[in-house]
């Protein structure tokens, strides 16, 4: 399953402003909760920052969904991996631990897990997701690989990441230097 348009994450452009974190909270499908993660890589030496969104893993399909004992996390035909259905979620946190990106968040008060659903209320009707719509520097960009590669010289887009010996192909993409490997090792074996 390939998404027609998806999010492209380009950490080199991130200014760490937090607009994505704020805007995520405005999405009507999880109003008040931000599913974004924003980290300063090493603030002691650099202002570099890194936004992390749900990558909507395609192959193997959604580890978070695979480990859910009650099938609360579903994937639609368009490749979007949805947030746990609150009527099914039992708060076991399997998804939180299974995600290779550390995306699902566990609400300890509600005893429920939440994750990015690519602003399904917006993207399913043709709007961009909140985070990438507001991002001032296009560190998060919603569009196609062709658009990104045309706009950004000396960069390429990748959607396969190595976690030890396991390769994961994702629905969202990262923008990396042109000489980076096609299969980017996130965790080396």
């Amino acid at each position, binding site marked *: 399953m390939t998404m027609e348009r998806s999010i492209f994450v380009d950490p080199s452009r991130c200014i760490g402003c937090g607009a994505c974190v704020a805007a995520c909270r405005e999405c009507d499908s999880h109003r008040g909760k931000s599913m974004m993660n924003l980290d300063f890589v090493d603030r002691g030496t650099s202002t570099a920052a890194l936004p992390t969104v749900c990558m909507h893993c395609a192959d193997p399909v959604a580890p978070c969904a695979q480990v859910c004992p009650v099938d609360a996390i579903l994937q639609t035909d368009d490749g979007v991996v949805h947030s746990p259905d609150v009527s099914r979620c039992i708060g076991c946190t399997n998804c939180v631990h299974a995600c290779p990106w550390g995306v699902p968040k566990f609400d300890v008060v509600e005893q429920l897990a939440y994750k990015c659903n690519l602003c399904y209320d917006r993207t399913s009707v043709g709007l*961009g997701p909140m985070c990438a*719509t507001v991002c001032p520097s296009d560190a998060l960009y919603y569009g196609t690989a062709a658009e990104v590669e045309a706009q950004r010289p000396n960069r390429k887009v990748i959607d396969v990441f190595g976690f030890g010996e396991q390769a994961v192909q994702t629905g969202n993409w990262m923008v990396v230097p042109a000489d980076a490997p096609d299969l980017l090792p996130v965790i080396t074996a």
Partner: protein
Amino acid sequence: MSRRRFTMPTPPGVDDFHAHGAASTGDWETDRADERWVPTHCSFCGVQCGMYLRVAGGEVIGVEPRMDTPNRGKLCPKGVAAYQQIEHPDRLTHPLVRDGGHLRRATWDEALDRVVAGIRRIQHESGRDALATYGGASMTTEKTYLLGKFARLGLGTRHTDYNGRMCMVSAGAANMSAFGIDRTANPISDVAETDVALVIGANVPETFPIFIRHFWTLIDRGGTLICVDPRETTLARIAQLHLSVRPGTDAALLNAMLHVIVEEGLVDQAFVDAHTVGFDEAAAAVADSTPGRASQICGVPTDDIVTAARLYGRADKAMVNHARGLEHQIMGTRNAQAAINLCLATGNLGRPGAGYGTITGQGNGQGGREHGQKCDQLPGQRKFDDPGAIEHVAAVWGVDPDEIPERGVPIFAQLDLMEAGAIRGVLNFCSNPIVSWPDQARTHKILEGLDLYVVSDLFLSESALLADVVLPSAAWAESEGVIANSDARVFKINKAVDPPGEARTDIEILCELARRLDRGHLFDYDGPRAVFDELRRASRGGRADYYGITYERLDAPDGIAWPCPDEDHPGTPRLFEDLRFGFPDGRARFNAVAYEPPAEEPDDDYPYRLTTGRDVAHYLSGNQTRRLGYLTDQSPAPWAEVHPDTASALDIADGDAVRLTTRRGTTVLTARVVGTIRPDTVFVPYHWAPPIAANQLTISRFDPTSGIPNYKACAVKVERSAEPAIPVPPPPVPTEGSHA
């Protein structure tokens, strides 16, 4: 749009206005089918991003990105959170008056009677000029225009000034002296088209985040970015050349660049000969400003200065952009003039991608200084030394020219008059000087010593706590009007909802005060549109000519850049395309600049250089943003940014409490130990109130030309503190009787 219904529990632990009971605390739902989306622009910085406010049930419930305006949907965290001010429980909803040392609830009649009685008493005893108005540039242009008119005709005082005195006045004075007009020459989008962009003293990613995309376009196109900043900002991080300049020494750097450009024959002599005056004097003034000497003063490598000058001087198209880092100095105006000298010497003006840009801080920092609340100007950027200007404005106002008082003095010169008892009363609309003026102890003493201090604001600011009368005013989304953004592009702010409780718009407040002062016939408006139509006429023929701009034309999402002299005129996004400048001979002026050290240099007692600035999550004095849960989550407290070498010498670790002390005051903040700042420099963001206000530390010294405070360089002592960092005081709220 199909009917969609979402139900979500109130998010637990979300510290924002929902949690404070302003919205339902049970299940709450939005139903977009019942929503109105009101097109408008942000309440915060000079970018003025377009946005929709989501309105349902008479309340503003959210924000929706707006793709048709120049920001193309993009927003910073402040823009996302801006809507949360509107229904905020801290809002002022009724007047307050001081009674026995406390502020208590009052009716509008009682509050306004108190104001008018005070005005009459002071003016009877001490004359008309014993009163002053002080306005903010977050107000719409209609409000700022009316406040200037109210000072001059309602009160009859010469003393009106505004908080752009802490923002744009150095850039404005330099623009006036070099180009004869005060606005940015080129739109910021020209950065995307240039070959070399020199950015000096502008933390674009934190203060104007949406402009960062133009810098990325420049880089993606293969252009060159040179960034001058004592900190490695996220803009400096992506620059090909970062000059980590010592705060307060920018003119030495810029003069050295001009020196290299002259010495190496990079001057565009044809442009200089045809379009400028004063090159020889400016060149002579930098004859001794060698890169080697600048390197000593600025603390950056000689080779980097030479490289920067060559990159800039050899470019076919080059831009210079600067902001408060360059301008908040006793050298502020001269620094900006030194930057303009580079543009003039290399012929970089009036072309796409070739020019000069002053980046405006406040939302209406441009429009708020054009139409008369600034002490030295009348509407349309007209000057007092032009008798025709006074006659024109008097005719529009329907008064005799003699009725318009002479020009006043800048706010920081007024402070001396307040200390001397010559100015006894101040009407402050939309500003929070306790946080924003330098040398907070002095500010507090002055405001407390006034016989009449009136504040109109939407929240109870730290300054309003000292007021005799507090008037609750409407927020930006509760009335309509125009603003001019950093590009001098005029946009329309639209009304989304009515003001809460008894709050009124500043226009209503000023008109009612004028009526009670028997000046109502000069302030007879049925709303912002009537004020704007008068403003258009008052500005007609002036430098900032708005005559051709109408509310209807401003439905265009791109707005209209002034000057716009008639209704068929498309506006003027880029100045000087005809290479005619705003002087009778049409030529631009070089200004010879001699470097002068900062107001206070480090010494044995205060060995480091303190520079203050901003955080992306907060706006100005924080009276708005320190109340918005998301923004305070992101940035809860000020900090002291210290280099690891300095920290190690002082035995300070990241996260330690540090005491900062200057000759003005002291505070204890948390240390942030980062290699992204000069070792001789300490940075503190200024948005917070005493006892953790950066302006407890800053110095009461001002640029002699522009009157801007010297925020960016004073001497500070840094010590590891045995006591913990001082807790953040909660923003004041109107709890009856609880205020001293």
